[in-house]
């Protein structure tokens, strides 16, 4: 696949998340799919990715990713996103706060056989915790 085809695949993957089409994840990830993210346990396979998506979409039912930039080379695509959502459901033990969040997410995808084979994710989890009021924001005294 060309880098342009790989970018198109990533754009459709983001649309899938934005339309909350969790069931379709099966068709998009490779059988040996792995997702690396320091803030969540390693995800292996479509079923685990669907569980992760369900967890995020339960916590943020209006979760939406805006593509800020895509950079592609060889079999890799980097996505730079702004993720926005309202915290309406439990998130990893944090009860709903109804706070709106907006944070930067960076991902590198490895594409193989027209599927997402591997993904490396860094999201601004500290910024998210500050926006949820769980951690004091800079300059704000700890309670």
């Amino acid at each position, binding site marked *: 696949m060309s880098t342009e085809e790989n970018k198109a695949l990533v754009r459709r993957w983001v649309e899938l998340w934005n339309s909350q089409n969790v069931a379709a994840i099966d068709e998009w990830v490779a059988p040996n799919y792995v997702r690396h993210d*320091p803030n969540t346990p390693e995800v292996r396979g479509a079923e685990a990715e669907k*569980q992760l998506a369900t*967890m995020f979409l339960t916590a943020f039912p209006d979760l939406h990713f805006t593509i800020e930039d895509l*950079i592609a080379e060889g079999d890799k695509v980097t996505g730079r996103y702004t993720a926005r959502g309202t915290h309406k459901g439990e998130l*990893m033990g944090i009860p709903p706060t109804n706070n709106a969040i907006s944070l930067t997410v960076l991902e*590198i995808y490895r594409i193989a056989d027209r599927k997402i084979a591997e993904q490396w994710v*860094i999201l601004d989890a500290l910024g998210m*915790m500050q926006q949820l009021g769980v951690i004091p924001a800079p300059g704000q005294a700890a309670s």
Partner: protein
Amino acid sequence: MTSQQTQTDHNKAIARRLIEAANAQEYDVFDQLMTPAQAQQAKDTMRWVYATFEGHHIDIIDMVAEGDKVLARVTTRGCHSGDFEGVPPTGKQWIDRGFIYNRFENGKLVESEVIMDALGHLKQLGATISPPFAPTA
């Protein structure tokens, strides 16, 4: 190889050289390969980093580049040896994962953004986060 590919490879080489220079504290390399404003900012940042985290080091794991943009996937490591956001030195060793985004114009760095796992960093320094950020997925 197209000239555009050559330019992209050149930008990757510069991005790599800048990270090596940061590791070696060779700040004159910043002056050569960055705009003056970027070079000053990078020097200030790295001086703060070395004052706060002894033995700081950046390792490049992967790079993805296209056109004038280079994205480096990195790990950084060091020892918490100085005051950090009000937290006195703990002497703890830490390792973080993250990305460095660079944009180049005419062979010089004009824009840079570093996105690291800051939450993981705080946790490694012993910060307690309540309620616990305990992944369950």
